[in-house]
């Protein structure tokens, strides 16, 4: 990471730490959800963006994480922070297991299978033999945690800081994972599975592991989301949740870590703005954005930002040399 990027990141973090003291509780709650979505999107991006396995059903893992947290807190009085590792572990296993048959499915077929998972999950959650645990159609209400150790912040602010800390930890781990050996293997499998295998990458293992880790991220996000919203019910985890996550990574930027954050802001705030027009407007806008981004901005917001900053850098380095020695790009050499 360059020095400039590091400074920028620190400024952003300082800003993120300051914001809850400047905004209303409702805005703080919304920002908490942005962080939650960012974690979920990073998870989906690992699978779909980096590893090339299309998932239209990640809302299912979000739901499993959310229900883990809610059931643990509601039935056994487990403290909220302790539910996250459990939700993560359950989703890791669930994702790994779903990833095993998914190994045989390529592209469209995997999209189909995960779509089926996303559509049928709410019905499974309502199943009456599970009602004792899941609360059936009614769902489960959770109590919002208060700030510990007598810290001078209210519950919303505390939850925001707690989520921020988890988000930072998850992103640091995610970055190291994606920028290292494992990340390279994941990208290699996406770009050319046969060549990756020939290079000694255990394709099957990496693909199902990616599925597991991706589900784990989304599950932790689900648990945090449940704690923030204080409520889980089957119908809040319908197929449109999965599609929202897909929209987040496409608009934010596929195969990009910062894209997860951009996407999270997009899926949290755009519906709020669009709701003013009509109840149906958010999805119409989402749909149009999806198609327009595929055609015109396949790199998403993260790609556009990167391009803009690269242009800016080039300009500033040109003005430093007085513009005398303009670098000749290969394009200008080849007619």
């Amino acid at each position, binding site marked *: 990471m360059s020095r400039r990027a590091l400074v920028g990141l620190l400024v952003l973090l300082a800003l993120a730490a300051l914001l809850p003291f400047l905004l209303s509780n409702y805005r703080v709650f919304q920002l908490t959800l942005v962080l939650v979505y960012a974690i979920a999107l990073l998870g989906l991006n690992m699978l779909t963006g980096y590893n090339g396995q299309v998932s239209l059903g990640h809302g299912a893992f979000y739901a499993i994480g959310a229900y883990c947290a809610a059931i643990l807190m509601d039935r056994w009085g487990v403290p909220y922070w302790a539910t996250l590792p459990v939700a993560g572990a359950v989703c890791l296993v669930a994702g790994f297991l779903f990833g095993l048959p998914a190994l045989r499915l390529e592209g469209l077929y995997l999209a*189909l299978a995960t779509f*089926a*998972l996303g*559509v049928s999950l709410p019905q499974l959650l309502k199943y009456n033999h599970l009602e004792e645990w899941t609360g059936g159609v009614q769902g489960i209400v959770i109590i919002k945690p208060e700030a510990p150790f007598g810290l001078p912040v209210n519950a919303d602010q505390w939850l925001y800081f707690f989520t921020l800390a988890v988000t930072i930890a998850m992103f640091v781990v995610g970055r190291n994972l994606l920028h290292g050996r494992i990340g390279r293997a994941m990208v290699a499998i996406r770009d050319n599975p046969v060549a990756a295998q020939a290079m000694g990458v255990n394709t099957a293992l990496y693909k199902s592991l990616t599925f597991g880790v991706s589900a784990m991220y989304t599950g932790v996000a689900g648990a945090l989301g449940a704690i923030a919203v204080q409520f889980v019910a089957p119908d809040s985890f319908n197929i449109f949740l999965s599609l929202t996550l897909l929209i987040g990574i496409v608009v934010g930027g596929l195969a990009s870590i910062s894209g997860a954050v951009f996407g999270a802001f997009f899926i949290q705030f755009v519906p709020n703005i669009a709701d003013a027009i009509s109840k*149906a*407007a958010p999805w119409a806008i989402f749909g149009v954005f999806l*198609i327009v981004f*595929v*055609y015109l901005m396949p790199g998403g917001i993260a790609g556009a930002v990167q391009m803009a900053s690269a242009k800016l850098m080039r300009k500033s380095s040109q003005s430093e040399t007085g513009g005398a020695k303009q670098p000749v790009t290969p394009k200008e050499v080849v007619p």
Partner: protein
Amino acid sequence: MTRGTMEALMHQVLAGLATGGIYASLALALVMIYQATHLVNFAQGEMAMFCTYIAWSFLNAGFGYLPAFLLTVAFGFVLGVVIERVVIRPVERAPVLSVVVVFIGLLVILNSLAGWIYTYTIKPFPSPFPEALANPLMSPHELGSILVTLVVLTLLFLFFRFTPLGLAMRAAAQNPESSRLVGIRVGWMLALGWGLASAIGAVAGMMIAPVVYLDPNMMGGILLYAFAAALLGGIDSPGGAVFGGFLVGVLENVLGAFVIGNELKLAVALVLIIGVLVVRPSGLFGRVHVSRV
């Protein structure tokens, strides 16, 4: 087995055949698009839903059922052609992810458009079939929708088997390069295929709407069964899709009534889809796909 349960089973099987016919139509629409472009149309259900709303508008404007039906089928055809030409064409050769994302975009646009124009209130939709079709085993609508499905399938078979246009469309789907060499306009054939698929979807929508009622999300579960049907029969086999549709309809009804209860009906589709994909990806009648690396 007592006589009573036998009769109940019979009822469920016949009711399953009725909904199965609708799954079969939608599965056939999916297979047609798959054969032509090797894409699975995730927006197929929403296209059908939107057409059904158009039919509702015609009926409300005072049209009789038959004119409204025919106008809606025509609308569905045009909708399919326009969508192929405008939205799908640019991503025809794009990676899978882009294609899936465009389909999802279409799905949510059509869904929200219907909600925007017609609101999310559930509306009743009339069944055209007279009481004269009533019999002790099936309701008029059940019998009528099976008949309609069979008529649609026969017409399609005749079209593809005996008309020059049908032949050209089959050729364009099977071997685009050679077809182009003999003067078939392959791009337009694909668009026509989309139009036909969308028109079939419109018929399916109008047949299922009296059962599930008209609402922007009515096709979610039905599309899932259609996927299961298409995969079970073999995603590249039209006859297989039809057989798969009827089979899934019967399975869903019988399992729902006697084994697992109505609450887990969608899980049947999920298990079927994943099961078929894992155990026998080519389905019952599909060609086994071999690729060279």
